[in-house]
């Protein structure tokens, strides 16, 4: 199954870059039952990485306790308009997705 869309915005505000990233993911806890009463298997993003101009600035480890369709905001020191921000994730099934944007 192809991963659903991601969306990201990186905005410079008074010397700080706010990076807000949205990810499509079910973040299944492994404890929820589907309409047929079957347990939906554990399926969640484990790692989220933020890079600034190719260099890793945030390494995140997350659990199934993060809400469905995760939304994170990170803050980077400085940054300039046009700087390249990349965010990627990998889940417990090895599925991945990534997106990139320029600081605005």
């Amino acid at each position, binding site marked *: 199954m192809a991963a659903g869309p991601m969306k990201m915005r990186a905005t410079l505000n008074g010397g*700080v870059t706010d990076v807000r990233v949205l990810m499509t993911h079910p*973040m299944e*806890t492994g*404890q929820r039952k589907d309409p047929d009463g079957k347990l939906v298997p554990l399926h969640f993003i*484990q*790692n989220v*990485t*933020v890079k*600034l101009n190719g*260099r*890793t*600035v*945030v*390494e*995140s*480890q*997350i*659990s*199934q*306790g*993060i*809400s*469905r369709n*995760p*939304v*994170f*905001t*990170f*803050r*980077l*020191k*400085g940054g300039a308009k046009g700087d390249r921000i990349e965010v*990627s994730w*990998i889940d417990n099934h*090895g599925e*991945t997705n990534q997106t990139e944007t320029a600081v605005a």
Partner: protein
Amino acid sequence: MRINPIRRSLVAVLAAACLKPFAALAATWNKDGFGAKTAADALKALGAGNPLPSKDLLIEAPQIAENGAVVPIEITSNVPGTTSIAVLIDKNPFPLVAKFDFTAGALPFVKLNAKMGETSDVRVIAEAGGKHYVATQEIKVTVGGCGG
């Protein structure tokens, strides 16, 4: 739709090739910490057994959440030299929710949405200069509210 077997294996090879760099990138995931069923065990797995309470670690979150499916939590560490922030929800089946490592270039700040099964303390741990600091806030979850 029938898929040509040769094409299928080609797809598999390509997928494997594409996945490799990510596998390297995803090297760290604290299995013991995320698998811990109590906050105390999770803290041990993080090497943060006895964190010091700190007023420089700020939690911005509603005191009441109308729905435990999405509880917004914003964390700022003003502890100098903070290199990581971890979030634990004591009463969740697996309390450790996330851990963020910041390198030069990122501020020790994060905003996330967490799931909460019931009213619980939310515990935030910051790591700075090899020491651990903690701040706690209770969040009430009111699914059902007055009507049960």
